[in-house]
C-alpha cells in the first residue's frame, strides 16, 4: 500500500478564487492511500517545496499528488523536489486544477467538485505507480541549420564560435536569403549587402561551419541528441572543386531568358548562373530546365569556355547522411501571391510592384541599376503611391489575419529614400495604422513625414485602374478629412503580406515539429520558450516562427544558438523512462506494434522463453528505449494486450477513469 501526500496549491488567487482548496484537501484525506493532505499559497515556491519535503520525511510518503497548474508548467519542478527529498521522481502526479479547472469555470461549487474529481483520479493513479529509472542517451556534438538567410547564418556563426560543428543546408545556390535582396535597412539606412556579406564570408570561412547550398533536407530520423538526416545535394553540373568563379560561362551562355529569382522576375538570368555577384559559394549552377544542352543535347558553350574544366553535365544528385544533436529551422519567408487582389491591378500593370520588387529596383545591382523608373516604359515617375496592409490583417480568405510587422518601417524607408534621391517626386502613403514599436522606429517614421515631406493619408486604397495614357488612377479614402481621393500615379508599390516559406510544411512534418494555421512554427511556450519547438532538439530562428525584422531575427538567432550550445555541451541526456514495455508471455509476435511505431523503436527478435515451464523459441516484440518516445500508439494497437507504457499502464489509466466515474 502506498503512503500518499496530497498538496493543493492556491496559485495566489488563480486557483483559490474559483476552487475551494480547503474542501479539496478535506476530500483528498478520505481517499485510499492518502496519509497526509495540505494546501499552500504557492506550492512551487521555496517554502511550498520545503513543505512537501517535510511531509515526505515526517509521514514516510511513497507517492505524492500536487493539485496545481498544468504539468507542462511545473511537473519538472515537483519531480526534482521529490528527488531532493529522497523520493523517486516518477512517484509524483499532477492534478491540473488551474488550466483544466479554475481558469475555465466560473461557478465555485462546480469548479470545486471538478477539482476534487481530478485530485481523486491522480491519487488513484499514484496508488499504482512504481519507481522508474531514467536512462541516458548520447549527444552528437554537431548541429544542423536549415536555411541560409540571416537567421541561419547568425545561428550557425554563434554555435560555431562556441566550438561546435554546424552544417547549413540552403535550397538555393547561395546563402544570403531575403536580406541579400534588400537595398538598405531601417532605421539606420545602412546598406544591406555591406552588413550581410561579411557575415556570409565569415560563415563560409569558419572552420566549424560546413555549407550545403543547392541542397535540401530529405529525411530526418532519430531524436534529440541523435538525429540522422539525409541531405540531397542537387546536381550543380559544375565541379565546385575546380570552378574558379570567373563568370565567363554566365557571360557566354546563349540561354538568357529565364526570369531571375533573385530579382523577383524583374530581370532575366542565364541558364548557368549564380544568383548574384557576391554569392557564396561563387560557383554557378546549371538550371537544367533552361539549359539548351540539357534540352536539346546541342550547345555545350559553357564547357568550351571554362578554362578550369569545371563543367560536368553528368553530375548526379548526391545524398549525404549525417548525424546531428540539434536541428535549427531558419526557413524564412516569401511574399504572398497577389492573384486574388485584382483591385490593385498587380497582374495588369508592370508599374504596380511589391515592396520587395522595389528593393531590387532601387538596388545598384538590380534590374534598373538602381535608377527609379517605371518598368513599363522606363520613364522617371513623378507621383508614387504606397499602399499598406496588402493582404495583412485580413479576415477574409484572400489574405492573412496577422500583421506582417515589417511593412510600416520599410515603407517609411522607401518613401524617405525616394524623396532624398529624387526631391521632385511626390510620395503618398495610404495607411490604416502606422505601427512603429522598436528602438528609433517612430522617430524614423516621423522623419519621413517631417523632414522628407512624405504625404501620409489614413485610409485604404479601393482600387488602382491602369489608364490609357499609361498612368494609374488610384481611388482611395481619406478618413480623417472624410473625402474620397482620386489621383493619378506613375507607380504603385504594394506592402505585400509575408508568409512562411512554403518549404516549411514539409520540413515541419519531417521533424514532427508543430505549425500553426498560418504555417508558422509553434514555440514550446509563447513567452518562456520562444526559440524552442515543442519537439525536443528542434529550435526556431527567424521568420519561420513569426514575422520579424532583421534586429529581432538576429537576436532570436543568437537565442536559438545558445539553446543549441546548452544541449551540445551535455555529454549525456536523460531519457524519459515512460517507454513501452512488452510482456513476452502475452506477445503473439503479430508485428502490428512495429508497423504503427512512428519512431522505429520496435523490432522483432526470436528468443527462448519459459512459458509456465514450457521452454520454446518465440518471435517477440523488443523496444529500443532510447528511440521510444512513449506515445502509446503500440499499446492501443496490440491485440493481445502485451504492450504497456511504463508510468501510463493500462491499469493506471483505467483506475483514473474509475475514480472519475465513481
Amino acid at each position, binding site marked *: 500500500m502506498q503512503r500518499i501526500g496530497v498538496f493543493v496549491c492556491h496559485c495566489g488567487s488563480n486557483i483559490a478564487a474559483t476552487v475551494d482548496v480547503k474542501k479539496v484537501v478535506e476530500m483528498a484525506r478520505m481517499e485510499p492511500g492518502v496519509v497526509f493532505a495540505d494546501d499552500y499559497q504557492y506550492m512551487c515556491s521555496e517554502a511550498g517545496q520545503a513543505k512537501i519535503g517535510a511531509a515526505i520525511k515526517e509521514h514516510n510518503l511513497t507517492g505524492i499528488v500536487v493539485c496545481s497548474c498544468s504539468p507542462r508548467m511545473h511537473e519538472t519542478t515537483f519531480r526534482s523536489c521529490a528527488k531532493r527529498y529522497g523520493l523517486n521522481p516518477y512517484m509524483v502526479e499532477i492534478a491540473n486544477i488551474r488550466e483544466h479547472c479554475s481558469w475555465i469555470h466560473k461557478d465555485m461549487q462546480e469548479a470545486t467538485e471538478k477539482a476534487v474529481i481530478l485530485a481523486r483520479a491522480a491519487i488513484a493513479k499514484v496508488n499504482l505507480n512504481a519507481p522508474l529509472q531514467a536512462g541516458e542517451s548520447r549527444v552528437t556534438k554537431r548541429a544542423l541549420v536549415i536555411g541560409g538567410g540571416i537567421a541561419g547564418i547568425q545561428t550557425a556563426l554563434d554555435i560555431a564560435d562556441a566550438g561546435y560543428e554546424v552544417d547549413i543546408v540552403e535550397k538555393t545556390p547561395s546563402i544570403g536569403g531575403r536580406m541579400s535582396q534588400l537595398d538598405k535597412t531601417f532605421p539606420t539606412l545602412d546598406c544591406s549587402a555591406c552588413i550581410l556579406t561579411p557575415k556570409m564570408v565569415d560563415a563560409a570561412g569558419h572552420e566549424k561551419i560546413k555549407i550545403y547550398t543547392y541542397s535540401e533536407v530529405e529525411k530526418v530520423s532519430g531524436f534529440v541528441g541523435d538525429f540522422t538526416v539525409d541531405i540531397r545535394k542537387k546536381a550543380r553540373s559544375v565541379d565546385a572543386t575546380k570552378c574558379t568563379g570567373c563568370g565567363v560561362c554566365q557571360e557566354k551562355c546563349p540561354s538568357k531568358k529565364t526570369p531571375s529569382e533573385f530579382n523577383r522576375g524583374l530581370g532575366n538570368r542565364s541558364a548557368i548562373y549564380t544568383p548574384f555577384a557576391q554569392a557564396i559559394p561563387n560557383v554557378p549552377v546549371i538550371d537544367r530546365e533552361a539549359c539548351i544542352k540539357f534540352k536539346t543535347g546541342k550547345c555545350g558553350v559553357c564547357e568550351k569556355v571554362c578554362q578550369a574544366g569545371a563543367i560536368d553535365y553528368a553530375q548526379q544528385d548526391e545524398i549525404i547522411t549525417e548525424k546531428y544533436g540539434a536541428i535549427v529551422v531558419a526557413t524564412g519567408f516569401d511574399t504572398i501571391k497577389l492573384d486574388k487582389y485584382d*483591385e490593385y491591378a498587380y497582374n495588369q500593370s508592370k508599374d504596380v510592384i511589391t515592396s520587395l520588387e522595389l528593393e531590387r529596383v532601387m538596388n545598384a545591382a538590380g534590374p534598373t541599376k538602381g535608377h527609379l523608373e517605371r518598368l513599363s516604359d522606363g520613364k522617371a515617375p513623378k507621383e508614387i503611391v504606397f499602399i499598406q496592409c496588402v493582404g495583412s*490583417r*485580413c*479576415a477574409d480568405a484572400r489574405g492573412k489575419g496577422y500583421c506582417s510587422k515589417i511593412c510600416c518601417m520599410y515603407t517609411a524607408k522607401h518613401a524617405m529614400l525616394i524623396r532624398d534621391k529624387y526631391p521632385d517626386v511626390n510620395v503618398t502613403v495610404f495607411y490604416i495604422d502606422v505601427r512603429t514599436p522598436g528602438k528609433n522606429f517612430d522617430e524614423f517614421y516621423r522623419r519621413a513625414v517631417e523632414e522628407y515631406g512624405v504625404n501620409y493619408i489614413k*485610409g485604404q486604397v*479601393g*482600387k488602382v485602374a491602369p489608364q490609357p495614357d499609361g498612368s494609374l488612377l488610384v481611388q482611395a*479614402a481619406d478618413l480623417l478629412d472624410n473625402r474620397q481621393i482620386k489621383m493619378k500615379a506613375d507607380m504603385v508599390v504594394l506592402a505585400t503580406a509575408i508568409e512562411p516559406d512554403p518549404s516549411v510544411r514539409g520540413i515541419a512534418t519531417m521533424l514532427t515539429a508543430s505549425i500553426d494555421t498560418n504555417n508558422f512554427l509553434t514555440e514550446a511556450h509563447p513567452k518562456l520558450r520562444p526559440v524552442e519547438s515543442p519537439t525536443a532538439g528542434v529550435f526556431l530562428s527567424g521568420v519561420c516562427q513569426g514575422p520579424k525584422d532583421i534586429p529581432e531575427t538576429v537576436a532570436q538567432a543568437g537565442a536559438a544558438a545558445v539553446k543549441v550550445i546548452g544541449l551540445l555541451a551535455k555529454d549525456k541526456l536523460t531519457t524519459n523512462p515512460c517507454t513501452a514495455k512488452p510482456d513476452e508471455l502475452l506477445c503473439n509476435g503479430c508485428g502490428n506494434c512495429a508497423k504503427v511505431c512512428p519512431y522505429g523503436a520496435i523490432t522483432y527478435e526470436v528468443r527462448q522463453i519459459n512459458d509456465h515451464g514450457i521452454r520454446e523459441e518465440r518471435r517477440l516484440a523488443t523496444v529500443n528505449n532510447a528511440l521510444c518516445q512513449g506515445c502509446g500508439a503500440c499499446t492501443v494497437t496490440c491485440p493481445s494486450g502485451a504492450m504497456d507504457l511504463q508510468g501510463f499502464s493500462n491499469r493506471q489509466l483505467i483506475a483514473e477513469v474509475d475514480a472519475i466515474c465513481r
Partner: protein
Amino acid sequence: MSEKKNQAKMVQEISGANPYKCMKCGKCSATCPSYDEMDIKPHQFVSYVQRGDIEALAQSKSLWKCLSCFACVERCPRDVEPGRIIDAARQIVVRQRGGNYLKAEEIPPLVDEDLPQQLLVSAYRRYKR
C-alpha cells in the same frame, strides 16, 4: 431591450454582418462609386450600427444613393460588408412603410426603354449569392 439596440440587432441579423470586426481601414469608402453623393459615408455605417443609431441611417441620403454594387462587400478585408448593412437598413425602412417586393413575373411589364439597365443589374446582383 431598448428600441435603439433592437433596431441595431435587426440590422445585424438581416445583414449577417458583424460591425465589430471593422478595423477602420476605409477601403469601402475608397471603393464606393456613390461616395460623393452620400451624407453618411460607407465606412461610417458600422459606427452607426455600433451606436445603435439606425434612425439616422434610415433618414440618410446614403440609403437611396447606394447602388448595391457590392464592391465594398467584395473588397472589405475584414468581412464586415458595409453594403449589406445599408441594405438591411433599407429593408427596415421599406418594411415600416408596408412596402412589398415585386414578384419576378411583375418585373418585365414595368421595364421600359428609358429604365437604366444598371438598375436592373444592381437589383439582381443583390440576390446573386
